[in-house]
């Protein structure tokens, strides 16, 4: 497992173009041919490169608006990068509250669809199904449409799918705030168990305790720039300094 690279990102950057008036219809574009929209460029991620090894747990810290979410989305292959390239070795999953589920589908269908998207075979999902339902504590609502779920139930279901099915590379965005205290305890237990071993995890959190506990290396971001990538203790120092 050593020295196998999970993600290579070379010279990546991301700029969002935000136009104030909506030029997103043919009519609008025609009528405003000589009147281009006022655009605002937001450089969310400045030119950077990094490499993540397989089986590593990387912390990602920084203040609000420092580009953490953009970086995870680019690394997960959800957003295309403007420059350079990202090479991903395996399936990825981004997890935050209310992750990738269709509100029109039932919990059962969502489990199968998500499991399948994460690369499992139907038979494998069959085997995991009861575990997922039990872990999420939604036994009585298996055939209920997810849109009728409370946000807590939804988050628990998403968390359970991610924990039991899991992609090769997981991006976990503040996941330890899911559910009540009992559920959180359970989640932490799973996390500390065998789960994290052999998996590539990018952990985004404002809780330094969590980062310190699980990550050997961490990324500290400021204003869309990776200021530091290396020893977690050092990264947290930078972060605390930045917060003062």
């Amino acid at each position: 497992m050593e020295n196998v690279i999970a993600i290579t990102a070379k010279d990546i950057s991301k700029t969002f173009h935000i136009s104030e008036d909506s030029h997103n219809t043919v009519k609008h574009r025609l009528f405003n041919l000589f009147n281009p929209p006022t655009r605002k460029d937001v450089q969310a991620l400045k030119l950077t490169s990094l490499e993540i090894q397989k089986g590593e747990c990387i912390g990602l810290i920084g203040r609000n608006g420092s580009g953490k979410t953009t970086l995870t989305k680019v690394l997960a292959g959800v957003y295309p990068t403007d420059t350079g390239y990202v090479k991903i070795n395996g399936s990825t999953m981004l997890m935050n509250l209310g992750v990738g589920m269709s509100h029109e589908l039932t919990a059962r269908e969502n489990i199968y669809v998500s499991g399948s998207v994460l690369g499992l075979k139907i038979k494998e999902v069959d085997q995991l199904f009861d575990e997922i339902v039990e872990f999420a504590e939604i036994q009585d609502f298996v055939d209920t449409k997810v849109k009728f779920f409370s946000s807590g139930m939804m988050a628990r279901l998403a968390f359970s799918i991610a924990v039991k099915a899991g992609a090769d590379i997981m991006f976990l965005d503040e996941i330890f705030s899911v559910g009540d205290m009992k559920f959180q305890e359970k989640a932490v237990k799973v996390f500390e168990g065998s789960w994290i071993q052999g998996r590539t995890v990018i952990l985004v959190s404002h809780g330094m305790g969590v980062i310190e506990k699980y990550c050997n290396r961490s990324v500290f971001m400021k204003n869309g720039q990776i200021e530091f990538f290396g020893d977690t203790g050092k990264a947290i120092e930078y972060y605390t300094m930045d917060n003062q």
Partner: protein
Amino acid sequence: MVLKILNDWFKGSNKFERLWLLAKIEFKLRYYENKLGLLWALLKPLLDIIVYYIAFKVILKNDIPAFASFLFIGLIIWNFFLESTTGTIQILSVKKYLYEYSNMNKLEIYVSTLLSNSIGFFFNFVMFLLFYNIFEKASTGLSFYNVWIIAVFVNLFVLSLGMSLILSTLYILAKDINQIWTVFTSFLFFLSPIFYKLSTFKSALPHFDYANPIAGIIINARRIMMEQSPPDFRLLIFDYGYAIVLLTIGLIFLNKLGSRAAEKL
């Protein structure tokens, strides 16, 4: 690029399973949600046929033999095309949950939706076969040429997929592509020989059957299913050409525009 995608698909052994799973769920969502359920899928073409039959046979008194079957095969092909294009313009927005949190290949979303439409087409086609062979008085029965329908359907599938890719990726840039396409398809509907006699159609609009791929597909389907003759091969090759060109453009669009869907929609 196409080869790479195909290769990628065959390697990952759960891809076909996933496509089928997504297609089944899509089909269920569409037809089992309301009380009439699957009956709707079967009833809709029948009701359409009744409307056009009254208009063109009872009122306009045309002399096409086996007119109900003639309409039937034309309409189920047209409906497949319409559902797979107009019905998928907003697909990247509706199915965002599938690609927003993972690096799933977006093309799979399209193929599974079209597969779901194919299930519907299959049911309608079986109904057509029953109707044509049991109730149609002017029926010529089954023949070996019927097998060619597979080639024609693949043609229709690829054509619809290409068009669906183009429209839904343009939707990211222009939200009113929906209205434009609706006008265009109603134009296309009346410029396809769905309820005209082929000779009338050809003399009024010479060579137009080569310009309109849907016309060619419908003409060939009728030759195969109702006239006991092989498809018009020139037309078939032409229509495969259209389908492949559109699919190529569609894949390029998906690569260039579709990759930005997560941030733009």
